[in-house]
C-alpha cells in the first residue's frame, strides 16, 4: 500500500529545496560583479580571476589536496585492514577493544579529538605541520573507511572465499585475490569519503597544524570570520563543482558497469 500523497511530495520537495537553496544562491553570487554580496551587479568572472592571483589561497588548496590524498590513502589501507579483521577473523582477543576504538572517534566531538591529538604531538615533541595534520586526518577517517568496508564484507557471500581456501589457496592470498577485489566498490567509495572528509575538516586541522601548513578550510574560516567575501563564493563554487563532477562520474561508472554485467548475463 505504498501510495504517494500530496503531503509526501510536498515534504520531500520542501526538504530538498531547503537543502539546495543556500548552495544555489552561493554559486549564483560567485558570478556577481558587485562587491556587495547581496546586491546583484551583473555577471562577472572577476572573483575567479582574483582567486587565481591569490597566492596564499592557492597554496592552501595545494596543502589541503596533498593532505587529503595522503591521509585518505593511508586511512583506506588501515581501515580496510580493520574491516577485514572485524568481519573475517571471527572472535579474537581484543576484538571488542578494536571495535570500540573504531566506532568511538566517529561520534567523538571534533574539538576533543583535535585537542587530544595535539596534546599527544606536544608530548612526544614533534614539529607540527603537514605531517601531524595528515596523521590526525588518517586517524579520524580510517574509522569511516572501516564502517563502509565492514558493511560490505558482512553482506558479501563468503562461499567463494571458502571455495578458494578449500582448493588450497593460502589465507593471505585468498584475502588479497578474492576478498579484497570483491569488496573493491566499497573500498573505493570509502577512499572518496575519507578524501572529502579530510578536505572539509577545520577543527582537527586547526588544533594539529603548525606554521607553514595552512589548509583550505583554515584559510576560508579566517576570511569568513571577517565577513562575507565574493572570492570565498568563487572558491566554494569551484569546490562544489568538483564534488558534483566526481559524484556524476562515479554514478556513471557504476551504471555502465551494471549495464555490462546485464549484457554478460544476457549473453550467457
Amino acid at each position, binding site marked *: 500500500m505504498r501510495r504517494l500523497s500530496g503531503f509526501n511530495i510536498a515534504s520531500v520537495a520542501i526538504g530538498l529545496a531547503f537543502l539546495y537553496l543556500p548552495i544555489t544562491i552561493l554559486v549564483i553570487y560567485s558570478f556577481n560583479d558587485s562587491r556587495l554580496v547581496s546586491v546583484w551587479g551583473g555577471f562577472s568572472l572577476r572573483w575567479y580571476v582574483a582567486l587565481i592571483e591569490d597566492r596564499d589561497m592557492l597554496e592552501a588548496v595545494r596543502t589541503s589536496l596533498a593532505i587529503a590524498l595522503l591521509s585518505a590513502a593511508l586511512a583506506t589501507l588501515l581501515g580496510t585492514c580493520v574491516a577485514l579483521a572485524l568481519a573475517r577473523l571471527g572472535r579474537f582477543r581484543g576484538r571488542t577493544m578494536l571495535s570500540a576504538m573504531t566506532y568511538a572517534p566517529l561520534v567523538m566531538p571534533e574539538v576533543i579529538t583535535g585537542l587530544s591529538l595535539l596534546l599527544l604531538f606536544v608530548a612526544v615533541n614533534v614539529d607540527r605541520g603537514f605531517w601531524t595534520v595528515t596523521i590526525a586526518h588518517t586517524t579520524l577517517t580510517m574509522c569511516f573507511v572501516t564502517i563502509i568496508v565492514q558493511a560490505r564484507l558482512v553482506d558479501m557471500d563468503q562461499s567463494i572465499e571458502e571455495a578458494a581456501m578449500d582448493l588450497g589457496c593460502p589465507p593471505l592470498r585468498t584475502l588479497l585475490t578474492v576478498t579484497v577485489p570483491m569488496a573493491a566498490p566499497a573500498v573505493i567509495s570509502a577512499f572518496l569519503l575519507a578524501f572529502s572528509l579530510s578536505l572539509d575538516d577545520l577543527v582537527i586541522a586547526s588544533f594539529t597544524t603548525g606554521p607553514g601548513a595552512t589548509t583550505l578550510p583554515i584559510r576560508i574560516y579566517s576570511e569568513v570570520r571577517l565577513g562575507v567575501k565574493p572570492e570565498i563564493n568563487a572558491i566554494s563554487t569551484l569546490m562544489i563543482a568538483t564534488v558534483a563532477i566526481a559524484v556524476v562520474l562515479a*554514478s556513471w561508472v557504476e551504471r555502465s558497469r551494471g549495464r555490462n554485467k546485464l549484457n554478460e548475463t544476457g549473453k550467457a
Partner: protein
Amino acid sequence: MPVAGTFARSRSVWALVLIPGLWLVVLFLVPCLIILKISLSQTALAQPPYTPVFDWTGGWAGLKTFLSGLSVSNYVALANDTLYIASYLKSLQIAALATLMLLLIGYPIAYGIAQTKGRAQAFLVLLVILPFWTSFLIRIYAWITILQHDGLLNRALIGLRLIDAPVSWLASDTAIYIGLVYSYLPFMVLPLYATLQKLDPTLLEAAADLGARRWKAFWSITLPLSLPGAAAGALLCFIPIVGEFVVPDLLGGSETMMIGQTLWLEFFANRDWPIASAIAVVLLCLLVGPIALFDNLRARQLRSRS
C-alpha cells in the same frame, strides 16, 4: 554477529590487526589518557603551557611525585564558574532542541522518500546525500549571505512587505538552529529512511483490511517500527551537536557560548591547556551515556542483519 571466522586459523592474516590496532592505540587511546592527565595538572606560563606531571626517568619516585602532583583544581574551577556551567547547559539545550526539530523535519522527508519506488527513490537518496559531500564550512558560509543584515532573507521579507525594517537574524540562537538543522539533516534522514524502507508493507495492508484508517495504521504500526531509526538518527545528531564549534561560532551571538566554543577559546585565546582539557573530559563524561546507547543500537542492527 557474523562470526564466520573464515580466516581465523591463519597466522599470516593476524598482521592485519597489528598495525591498525597499534595505530589506534597510539593515536586514539593514548591521547585520551593524555587529556585526562593534563586536565589534572597546573597551568604554567611556559611552552607547553602546563607543568609537566610525569617524568619517565624518575622511576618509582617519579610515580610518587606524579601522583602528588595531580590536582583537581581545574575541575573545581569548572564547577565554581557559572560561565562554564551555563555553557554546558546551553550546549545540551541547543542540541536537544535541534535534535527534536531535526526529527520533526526529517521524518516526513524520510517517509516521503520511502514511499517512492525504484530509480526515483535512488535518485532522491542521492540528492539527500550529496550536500554531505560538499564542505560543511561552505554550507554554513552560504547561510551568512542569506541571514546577514542586508542579506537576502531580509530583502525578500521587506519586498513581500512582511516586515518594515531588517531583522537581525545573524548572531542569534535562531541562526544557530537554522545552521544546525541544515547541516545535520542528512544524518537524520538517512537512518530514518533506512528503517522505513525496510518496513514490511503487508503489515499496513493487513491494517487496512481490518479497517484501520491511514493515520491510525501509521500511528500504531509505522511509527513504533521506525523508532530504532529515529533513535539512531537522533543520537547521530545529538552527540556531535553538543560539541559543535563551527555553526555557533559563525552564526551565533556572543552572549552565551556553546561548550565547543568555550574549549576553543580557552585553548587558542587564553592558552589555558589544562582547563581546556578539563572541559573536554567533562564533555566526554556527559556524552558517555548517549555514545554507549548509540553503540548498543549499532550492535543490535549488525546482529539483525546477519
